[in-house]
């Protein structure tokens, strides 16, 4: 990127809330079911039907508001956003216009180990639209699936506070991890649980902000990164060529890697917002706001701080664990209830456990591993009952099968020998059998030590405690 320029990014993020039922009717809020099966007269907008608000949606949005340090409006309203499209059966979307449920918040993100505060303009509740199915088999026509109509959404609007695609990505990752910590969104990107519209402008440093474009159809975080990078290059090129950036809505075509103009400001929709007369004003009392606040768990940024400052984990490890609610909860249970050493627990999580999850595509919850068993296993290793190598063998079993660890150690004969006299006897035997190596060690070839310890391990069939073995050999070589 041309260094003279700075990119300014603001994001509008839509997250589908994982409530049991839809926002304005009692249809189930489900993904991936047969088309037009979770529909009713209300979400199909048959004449005469009326919406009634699912209060859980308000609770979920308030939780997000708390997590993003927003002011929660005690009184707010819902509005109609009017436009025609076949996936919108009422021809208006019930949303919130001038008075959102939550506003004026912020979230701290971490980019390259540096913390940055991103302003949150507002969070409002609204309903999702249906889906159009285009296929040649429909003889040139399109079909509509209304299952998604009325799925509850929150729209989280950020301030234009991001200055790079990396910051935008970190912001999105942070939102995603907060949503999963609050357990209010499935966060399944491939199912469209989180989608965003990206606002981008560029300007020469020290000059006022440039004209922004809004990019729609951004369906993954990596697409957001590519879209931003494409858009900033495009805008800089335009300015460098003496052209102006046009205020417009563009569509991101991820397959082609380009953004395409959809409509300019002149043909922008006039949504004719007005207060939804079928629904009452939303009022939330102090008690409800406070109760919801009390339900907010420790969030990722707080966790990272605790892991680094109190538990001594490296920042990077702490971040990876904290951003994944499953890993973090597992880690916390291992270290708190299970009493495992934080560093060892973190090594397991980021090493063998992550490797297993990546290879199998499973989530932690889908394995047989529990924090109890993991801390038990770590305990055996810490107490030298088994070696780290044996621990890995046991791990491979207990991650897939529900078997008692103690019995596995016995059955597989993995218990380490830590009895000093037994080890000393073994050392004497090996040293006697390997005179040349002893001599070369004494002549300064220190790598002979490794060989000698290795021979001991081999003779014990790996059961000798390697640390103790090394000390004993050293001691005897020094005599």
């Amino acid at each position, binding site marked *: 990127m041309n260094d003279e320029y700075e990119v300014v990014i603001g994001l509008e993020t839509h997250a589908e809330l994982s409530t049991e039922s839809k926002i304005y009717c009692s249809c189930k809020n489900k993904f991936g079911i047969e088309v037009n099966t979770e529909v009713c007269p209300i979400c199909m*907008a*048959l*004449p*005469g039907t009326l919406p009634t608000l699912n209060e859980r949606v308000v609770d979920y949005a308030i939780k997000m508001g708390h997590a993003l340090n927003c002011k929660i409006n005690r009184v707010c309203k819902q509005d109609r956003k009017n436009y*025609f499209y*076949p996936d919108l*059966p009422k021809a208006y979307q019930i949303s919130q216009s001038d008075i959102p449920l939550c506003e004026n918040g912020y979230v701290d993100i971490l980019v390259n180990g540096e913390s940055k505060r991103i302003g949150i303009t507002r969070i409002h509740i609204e309903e999702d639209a249906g889906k159009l199915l285009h296929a040649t088999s429909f003889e040139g026509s399109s079909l509509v699936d209304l299952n998604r109509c009325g799925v509850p959404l929150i729209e989280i609007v950020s301030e234009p506070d991001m200055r790079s695609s990396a910051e935008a990505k970190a912001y999105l990752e942070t939102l995603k991890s907060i949503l999963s910590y609050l357990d209010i969104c499935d966060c399944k990107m491939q199912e469209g649980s989180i989608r965003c519209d990206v606002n981008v402008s560029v300007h020469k440093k020290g000059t006022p902000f440039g004209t922004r474009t809004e990019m729609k159809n951004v369906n993954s975080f990596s697409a957001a990164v590519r879209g931003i990078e494409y858009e900033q290059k495009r805008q800089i090129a335009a300015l460098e060529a003496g052209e102006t950036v046009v205020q417009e809505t563009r569509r991101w075509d991820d397959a082609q890697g380009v953004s395409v103009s959809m409509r300019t400001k002149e043909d922008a929709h006039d949504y004719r917002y007005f207060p939804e007369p079928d629904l009452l004003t939303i009022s939330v009392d102090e008690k409800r706001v406070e109760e919801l606040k009390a339900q907010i768990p420790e969030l990722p940024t707080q966790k990272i701080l605790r892991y680094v400052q109190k538990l001594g984990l490296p920042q990077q490890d702490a971040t990876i664990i904290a951003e994944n609610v499953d890993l973090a909860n597992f880690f916390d249970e291992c270290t708190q209830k299970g009493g495992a050493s934080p560093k060892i627990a973190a090594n397991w999580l980021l090493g063998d456990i992550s490797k297993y999850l990546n290879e199998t595509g499973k989530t932690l919850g889908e394995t047989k591993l529990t924090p109890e068993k993991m801390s038990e296993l770590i305990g055996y290793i810490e107490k030298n009952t088994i070696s780290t190598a044996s621990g890995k063998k046991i791990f491979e079993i207990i991650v897939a099968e529900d078997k008692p660890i103690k019995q596995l150690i016995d059955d597989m004969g993995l218990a380490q020998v830590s009895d000093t006299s037994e080890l000393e006897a073994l050392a004497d035997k090996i040293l006697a059998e390997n005179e040349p190596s002893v001599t070369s060690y004494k002549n300064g070839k220190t790598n002979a030590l490794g060989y000698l310890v290795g021979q001991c391990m081999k003779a014990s069939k790996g059961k000798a405690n390697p640390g103790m073995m090394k000390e004993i050999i050293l001691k005897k070589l020094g005599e």
Partner: protein
Amino acid sequence: MELYEMTAAQLSQKLESKEISSCELTKAVIDRINSVDEKVKAYLTVNEEEAIEQAKAVDNKRISGEKLSKLAGIPIGIKDNISTKGIKTTCASKMLENYVPPFDATVIEKIKANDMVLLGKLNMDEFAMGSSTENSYFNVTHNPFDLDKVPGGSSGGSAAAVSAREAIVALGSDTGGSIRQPSANCGVVGLKPTYGSVSRYGLVAFASSLDQIGPIGKSVKDVAMVQDIICGRDKMDATSAIREYTSIADSLTGDVSGVKIGIPNEYFGEAIDDDVKTAVMNAVHELEKAGAKVCEISLPSAKYALPAYYIISSAEASSNLARFDGVRYGYRAKDYTDLVDMYEKTRSEGFGDEVKRRIMLGTFVLSSGYYDAYYKQAKLMQRKIAGEYKAAFNEVDVIATPTAPFTACKIGQNIDDPLKMYACDICTVTVNIAGLPALSLPCGMDRSNMPVGLQLIGDSFREDKILGAAYAYEKLVGGFAAPAL
């Protein structure tokens, strides 16, 4: 006296004592429909076979000794914008000509739970927009008192059917006077309940913040009886009020002594026909003679109610009627080139002129740059008007006004003059704007022998007071005249 000429209250006793059966009664009313509806044209759909089946079922319940509602077995007609499961609900529009709802409106569930017999669906102005029922896509309904005249609207079919004795009672809907004005024109009693007292679930929306379903009957008691069963909290309608309701029909005593009646001078201006003023004031004096206290009051902002009403109602209508786009149900244009063309042709061909006029008006007042000047101002005015009424009800129990500025017009007289047509609502819209209950009851005839309506307006949820005063008047004058058909 023929069965179809009797009131629901009278018929209820005869049914309860098994003097008559619902089947006999229903057949009598259907025969009446078959003999006079050719002239009146109140019905769009007559549910003949099912009505008789329903009547038989009620009779069987009664024979088996089941405890039944007072209205069990009484035939009722329904305005065609109230959803009836399995029965066409057209809103008198080409757009919904063949639309059959898969569910019942909450009021229909209540009607059925009370074992009332569903006679059929009644004509109206398309999507309840109009004051004459001339805006029906299907046909014009004729006033039973003078077949050359309109029945009023938009619930013209409902009022004409009750007036012509083609239904014992009927349901209408009232957004700006659509129950009261046709009731006045047709010489029957019509109640627009307090906003929020009757569920709107299943009523095809015109203006959501103003629409209310209400009863029309030949007598005040009949209207009270129907209101008693249709009111109540409905969890399907977020705007329905959470409160307890007590029977109004049981509270009617005929005693009006001490009731304070306010007369707002703003409702007796130049726009009001002299015969109407005279008839209304005569009725007020009757009540005064019976012990009511009459005083003048002022509602200075009333004159802004009509413009505020047309802004708010059209704005909401433009959004409510957007769903009629040809995608899922209802009319779809035959030839179109693309999506936008399909929308445009469907809506151009499917809606009538008045509906299109309101959609355009509503779209305009909500448009960016005009919202503050129109919609926002109208909503502010709404609050002011409601405040003036609130203050008035600190002084009086009931406010009496004409229901309409003039009696029924000739068919075709105002059809090309929307502003003249809109003026029909000048006395009624204020009530919707303020969310209050009001009823219209007959109070004599004008020089051409057409019925005049007296409007009684009450404070929120005080239907008992207006129905009480109306009941007293009905007793004083010995009932209301029927048309000679």
